[in-house]
C-alpha cells in the first residue's frame, strides 16, 4: 500500500447512481456505474423509475458523497428542483449532485442555479466524470 492510502482522500468515494422518471434507457447509467466502480468508488445503483423522494432517501441511508442522476427524457426540469429541495429539507447539503444525459445547453445555467455541481452532456468522456468527482469531494472527517 502506498502512503497515500492512509490519507483522507483514499477513503472510497460513495456514489449513488440513480435513474429517476419513467424512462428506461439505462445504458448510460449502467456504464457510468461500472466506470466509477472500476475507478475505485463504492457505487450504489438504484435501478429504474425512482421518485425524487426515493433517490434522496437512498442517498441518506447509503451515506453517499455524490448523487449521479441520469435523465434522457427531458424530465430534468421537473425532477431536479424536487431533488434539490428534498436535500435541503433533510439538511443534506454536503451531498453533491451531478447530472448526466440529454440536457440542452439552455437548461444548464438553470440546473446549476438549483445547485447541481456539474452537468455532463452526451459525449462526455468517462475520465472527465471520474476526475470531476475525485476533485470535488467535500472534506469529510474520519470517524
Amino acid at each position: 500500500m502506498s502512503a497515500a492510502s492512509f490519507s483522507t482522500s483514499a477513503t472510497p468515494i460513495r456514489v449513488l447512481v440513480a435513474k429517476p422518471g419513467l424512462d428506461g434507457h439505462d445504458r448510460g447509467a449502467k456504464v457510468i456505474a461500472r466506470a466509477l466502480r472500476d475507478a475505485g468508488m463504492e457505487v450504489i445503483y438504484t435501478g429504474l423509475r425512482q421518485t425524487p423522494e426515493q433517490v434522496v432517501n437512498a442517498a441518506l441511508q447509503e451515506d453517499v458523497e455524490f448523487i449521479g442522476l441520469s435523465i434522457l427524457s427531458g424530465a430534468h426540469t421537473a425532477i431536479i428542483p424536487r431533488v434539490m429541495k428534498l436535500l435541503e429539507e433533510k439538511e443534506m447539503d454536503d451531498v453533491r449532485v451531478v447530472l448526466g444525459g440529454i440536457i440542452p445547453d439552455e437548461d444548464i445555467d438553470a440546473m446549476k442555479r438549483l445547485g447541481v455541481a456539474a452537468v455532463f452532456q452526451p459525449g462526455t468522456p468517462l475520465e472527465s466524470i471520474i476526475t470531476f468527482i475525485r476533485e470535488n469531494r467535500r472534506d469529510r472527517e474520519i470517524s
Partner: protein
Amino acid sequence: MQVRPDRSRTLSGTPVEKVYTRDRLSDFDPSADLGDPGGFPFTRGIHADMYRGKQWTMRQFSGFAAPEETNRRYRYLLEHGQTGLSVAFDLPTLMGYDADDPLAAGEVGKCGVAISSLADMEELFRDIPLAEVTTSMTITSSAAILWAMYLVVAEKQGADWARLSGTIQNDILKEYMAQKEYIYPPRPSMRLVVDTLEFGAGNTPKFNPISISGYHIREAGATALQELVFTLGAGVEYVKWAVERGLQIDRFAPRLSFFFDVHSDFFEEIAKFRAARKIWARLMRDRFGAKNERSWKLRFHAQTAGVSLTAQQPRVNLVRTAIQALAAVLGGAQSLHTNSLDEAYALPTEEAALLALRTQQVLACETGVIEAADPFGGSYFLERLTLDLEKGFFEQLEKIEAMGGMVTAVENGYPQAEIARSSYEFQKSIEEGRRRIVGVNAYVEEEHEPIPTLSIDHTVAEKQSAKLAKLRSERDNAAVTRALDNLGRAAEGDTNLMFPILDAVRAYATLGEMCDVLRGVFGVYSEQSAV
C-alpha cells in the same frame, strides 16, 4: 502512449482478415445457403424482384407534444413524400399513465406524443384516412390498448378493419431486455401479446400485431450477434406461446414482423440482415413446420443507429445516417427510418427530419442500388460473415433453450447482463482509443457550434390534463365503470382481452384507467438492478 486503433475487428468485435478468397468458403453451399431472391432460405431477399417490384416504405418515426402538433407533422411528412406513418408515444403513454397522473410529471409530450384516451387518438389522425396509410405504432406494454384506440378511430372513419395495414411494436420481451418500459410481469405480459396475435389473425389480416425488435437491444449495447440471438430468440418464444394457445402456425406467422438496428459497420450489418432471413426461414419451416411460404419470410423495418449519433460536430451525423441507410437497403429492408442529425440533442426539428427523409429519397432515386437484388450476394467476405452469424446464432439459441427459453432467461437477467457487458466493453474501447469515432476521439474540434433544436411546449401537460378533466365530466361514467369491471373480470380469467379493451375504449375509458385495472390483476414488475 499512442494506442493503435483496432482496425482488424468488426464493430461487434469479430476478427476480420486482410482478404477473403474461395478458401474461406469451403463450408458454403450456394444452393442451400443462398438460393435466389424470393426463394428459400431468402438470404438474398424476400422478393424475386426486390425493390423493382416494391420499394421500401420510408417511415419516419415521429411524435411529440399534444396530438394536434403531431398531426401537423404527419401531414407535413406525407405531403413531402413519406409513404407510411410511425407514431412515437411519450413515456407516460408507454407506461400506461394518463397525462394528469403525478408519475407523469415532467414527461408529458416530451419523448413522443401524449395519448390518454380515444379522444386524443381521434385528434392524432384527424384528416388522415386510416384505410389508405400504413401506420406503425411504437408501443408495447400498453400496445393492446393503443391498438384498440386506433381500430376504433378507423371504425369511426368507416374504414374496414380487414383493410387496415400497419404494425404495433408489442414486443414485450425486449422491454425486459433493453428498453425497460415494462408494466406487468413477463408471463401475464406474454398472455396479452398472444391475445393480440390471436385477435389479429381473426380480425385484421393485413395488420402486423407485433414487431419483434432488435433495435433497442442493439442500442442498449448488444453486438450484432447478440441482437440476432435475443431478437429471433424472442420470436421463437412468441411462436411457442401462440402454438400452445392452439393457434395454427400459418394463421399468425405471416404477420410476425421484425425491426432491426442498422449500425455503422457496413458489411457486418448487411450480413446480419441476410443471416436473419435465413435463420428465420429455417426455424419456421424446419422447426415449427410452417407450410405457408409467407410464414418463412422475415420482413423487417430498419432504423439507423441512434446510439452512433454524436453530440460533437452534429452535422457529421448526416453522413453516418446515409451510410447506415445504404446498408439497410443493400440488406433488403422493407421499411426504413433514417435518424435526423440533431437527435443526440433532442427530437428533430422539421428541417432536420426533412433532410433525413431526403437521404432515403436520394438512395432510391439517384444511386442505382435498388436495381439488382442482393448485389453483394456471392462476395467471399459477405458470405463468410453471414455464415458466421448464423452459426453463432444457433449455438447461442441452444444455450437459451437449455435455460428454459427466453422468458426464463429474461426472468433470470441473462440477456440484460450480456448486453450491459457488451456496452461497457464498447465504451472502454472508445475511451482507450482502440475504436475511433470522428469528433469524439478522432478529428476533434475544440469549438462547439450549436445547432437549432426542437423544444417542446411546456404547457402540453396542462392542456392534456384539462382535456382529460373535460372528458371525465362529459362521458357516460356508468358505462366506463361497467367496461372497466368487464375488463378486470376478463383479465382474471383467460378470455382474449382485446374485446373488453375495445369496449372500454369505445366508452372513452382512459389509458391509465385500463392499465390500473390490469395492474391490479397482473401486478407490476420491477427488475433486479445489478450493475
